[in-house]
């Protein structure tokens, strides 16, 4: 019931976004340029040097493509969060509180960011090129793990937005922090965590769960789990992290809702 409502609201949001055709096209190109620059950087470096932290061009492309597909899937629901502080400040958040569906669900499905289409295109293209450059045995098990990893990674990214968004009701500001965490995810997330040194690698695994988005699943699929400083078991179970993080984030969001003051009261 809740799911059906969510899907219907989301489709309405997508229809709304696609009305602006030129905008749609521009946003898709923007997403491709934004994400493409990062890949072009790694690519150019790797035409001159053999590896980044032992990862070849194929390996890095695999990680990059996976991360970008995850980002696209997360964007299906994570798009509206940058506008949350504005809606809270102006009192527009009121409307989610007077309808029977969950406020968070209504908020996430209100509009759809068409940039996810650009991310998806870029992610698929880079990932397809990477599979040609690497030798991954695509058994049904590996494909199943890949799909779960994409979903799990997307939930980690979404959970991070929900967590930061939860702060908005008290502080009235969350976009700058979201912008920052987003830039860490879309840049640091494209490299093997080992190059950051053990302290940061640990931080990106347990404090800011960046490693779960693409790095840990990529080590499993590329048969590199042995190089991890954490137990490989954590890498195999990586898709679960998203579920846990999201559960925590939703709890926090709903408890913080009580701090919402609306505007002009």
């Amino acid at each position, binding site marked *: 019931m809740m799911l059906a409502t969510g899907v219907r609201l989301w489709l309405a949001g997508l229809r709304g976004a696609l009305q602006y055709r030129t905008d749609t096209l521009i946003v898709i190109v*923007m997403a491709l340029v934004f994400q493409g620059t990062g890949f072009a950087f*790694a690519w*150019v470096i790797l035409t001159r040097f053999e*590896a980044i932290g032992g990862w070849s061009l194929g390996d890095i492309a695999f990680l990059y493509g996976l991360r970008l597909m995850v980002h696209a899937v997360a964007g299906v629901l994570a798009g509206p969060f940058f506008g949350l502080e504005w809606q809270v400040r102006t009192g527009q958040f009121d409307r989610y509180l007077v309808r029977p569906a969950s406020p968070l669900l209504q908020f996430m499905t209100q509009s759809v960011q068409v940039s996810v289409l650009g991310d998806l295109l870029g992610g698929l293209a880079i990932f397809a090129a990477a599979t040609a450059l690497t030798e991954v045995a695509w058994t049904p098990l590996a494909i199943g793990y890949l799909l779960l990893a994409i979903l799990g990674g997307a939930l980690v990214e979404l959970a991070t937005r929900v967590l930061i968004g939860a702060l908005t009701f008290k502080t009235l500001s969350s976009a700058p922090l979201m912008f*920052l965490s987003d830039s860490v995810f879309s*840049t640091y997330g494209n490299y093997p965590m080992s190059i950051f040194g053990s302290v940061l690698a640990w931080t990106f695994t347990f404090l800011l769960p960046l490693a779960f988005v693409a790095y840990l699943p990529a080590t499993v699929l590329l048969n590199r789990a042995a190089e991890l400083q954490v137990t490989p078991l954590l890498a195999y179970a990586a898709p679960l992290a998203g579920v846990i993080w999201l559960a925590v984030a939703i709890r926090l969001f709903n408890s913080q809702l009580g701090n919402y003051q609306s505007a002009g009261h």
Partner: protein
Amino acid sequence: MNTTPAARAGYLKLARLQIAVTHTYRWQVIAFLLSSLLQIFLLKVVWTAVYDGRSSVDGVPLVELISFLTIAQLQLLAMQPMMVWYLERRIHEGHIGLDLVRPLPFLGQLLAQQAGATIGYLPFLLVAIPFAFVLGNLAPPASSTAAVFYIASALLGYAVAMLIGLLMGLVAFWTVQTLGVAVIYRFAAQFFGGALIPLFLMPDGLRVVAELLPFQAQAHIPLSIYTGRTSEPGAIAAAIGLQLSWVLALALLAGLIWRRARRIVTVYGG
């Protein structure tokens, strides 16, 4: 440009307003700054990883490279053209009509506001410098001559950045939307400007493209002078000459487009 005392007072007021605007939205400025610092650190980590223990590759020492990229990133931060956003908003909301009837020439108003926005940014940049030193690396200029020519070259780089910003903003007279162009510019400036990979480390094909584009004038040319990579008097003269030609070409183009733009201006809701 109009330079009567009254006009000067007007320009000063516009510039001061933009300084105030920058400080009002300081959290946004700080977020931008932090993301640049994060970028600087990532560049250091990635380049250190690909150097893989070697202290120098192709005659480029790692320490010099990191310093080059750190300053290039800070420099791009100081060279953000706010005119793009400003022009788009004014046109979108129809305020452009008001701007055009003010007693100051519109391009002059824009320049004054841009100067204010940049000055408003400087204190934040100053605070960021020690962090940039820790997260990246900062080396002093190669020599005192290098320092002098660097300042001249960086100012020309600033002029190029502002003219490109103005051109992108003027596009809004036709398209109303410029957000797409602005984002693409930001990444083109980083990538082709040499703030991620200096031109001397690019593969030949890519380097040729980067050398044909104006973006190298913003980061690569000034930094090459700063680090002493461009040190022959002839080479410095050629580099600064190239920047000057870009300034001239872009200024001519902007003037041409501006003359057409003011004739087709549409004021929404007016």
